[in-house]
């Protein structure tokens, strides 16, 4: 005899133990030793979810859960709107080998009735969801990761050989706010590698042509330009607004200055340099590892130019 929805839920209830919203709330406040999994649709998740919850909709569960939750021993609490979908999802998780699965009774409705807090996410518009869909699909990115990218502020020091591909991919990925520092004008010899600038940009400030290319690629991105050379008097003012600094400078004084300024301001610095056929890259952050001066205490002799 075909089973009705109620029968399926009743069966799931026998297999998947329930946990009260009150108990979940205590656990959420106390421990990281379990995963809170929201199996509602993305729109429902965005409209309000429990802080720290992972979002995998019921429809995508079988496809995405293994990558997002590689350890089958880790306890999982599943919730949905009212507690039925989470039971069905819990059943699937058990079949897939997850050992410790609970379903939150009454779902987020019960959670809200108890006056517990939920988080709302700023909605992405349909065009954004489509534009970034290929990376949103990655469980490590998801809509929440895309929101982080859209909210991020990255400063590019130099929009030459290193800064051009960096700005292009950051803008394409939807990194919401880019700052670009460069005091140079576009020169014919730049065009062989500085792919943000085109032939008809020759003679224009690099900040302007860079901004134009970035905006054409992704109008979502806000671009702030600094057509100045970094020096001790302006560096703090310029870097302070940014979460992360990308070093695309073509000279050692700027590289050392940037290292020192980022160290004092505790900003993460992503370093890159190139010479002939060799390229270097690393990351510096105060207190989490060495700095540029640990690596190269004094600049190399003049003539060894980084870009």
């Amino acid at each position: 005899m075909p089973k009705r929805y109620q029968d399926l839920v009743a069966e799931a209830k026998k297999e998947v133990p329930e946990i009260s919203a009150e108990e979940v709330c205590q656990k959420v406040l106390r421990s990281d030793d379990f995963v809170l999994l929201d199996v509602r649709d993305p729109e429902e998740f965005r409209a309000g979810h429990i802080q720290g919850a992972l979002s995998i909709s019921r429809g995508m569960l079988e496809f995405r859960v293994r990558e997002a939750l590689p350890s089958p021993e880790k306890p999982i609490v599943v919730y949905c709107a009212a507690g039925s979908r989470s039971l069905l999802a819990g059943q699937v998780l058990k079949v897939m080998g997850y050992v410790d699965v609970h379903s939150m009774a009454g779902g987020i409705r019960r959670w809200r009735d108890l006056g517990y807090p939920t988080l709302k996410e700023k909605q992405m518009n349909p065009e954004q969801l489509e534009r970034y869909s290929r990376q949103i699909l990655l469980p490590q990115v998801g809509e929440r990761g895309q929101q982080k990218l859209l909210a991020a502020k990255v400063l590019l020091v130099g929009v030459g050989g290193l800064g051009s591909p960096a700005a292009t991919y950051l803008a394409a990925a939807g990194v919401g706010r880019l700052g670009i520092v460069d005091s140079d004008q576009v020169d014919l010899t730049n065009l062989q590698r500085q792919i943000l600038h085109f032939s008809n940009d020759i003679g224009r400030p690099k900040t302007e042509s860079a901004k134009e290319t970035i905006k054409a690629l992704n109008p979502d991105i806000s671009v702030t330009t600094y057509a100045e050379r970094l020096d001790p008097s302006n560096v703090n003012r310029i870097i302070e607004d940014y979460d992360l600094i990308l070093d695309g400078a073509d000279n050692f004084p700027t590289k050392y200055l940037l290292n020192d300024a980022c160290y004092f301001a505790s900003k993460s610095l992503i370093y890159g340099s190139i010479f002939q056929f060799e390229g270097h890259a690393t990351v510096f952050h105060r207190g989490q590892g060495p700095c540029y001066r640990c690596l190269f205490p004094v600049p190399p002799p003049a003539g060894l130019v980084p870009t």
Partner: protein
Amino acid sequence: MLGVLPGIIGVIQTTEAIKWILGIGNSLLGRLLIYDALEMSFREVKFSANPDCPLCGTHPTISGLEAKPGLEVIICSPASPGV
């Protein structure tokens, strides 16, 4: 230089930036990644904080941007290979 070289390094830096924003993966903190385009090889040098570093060492001599000796003077110093 070949235009693709800064392209590759710039894209590696960008990968690190995106990972940093997303909070995923292992970063290059403490590792210098070295790419050789002719050999088409990547190698990695682990390095740790230098206790004698004039900036972040145990007895720093650089205490602010203004107090730093003139960079143009340093850059002409004959000392040290490096990059």
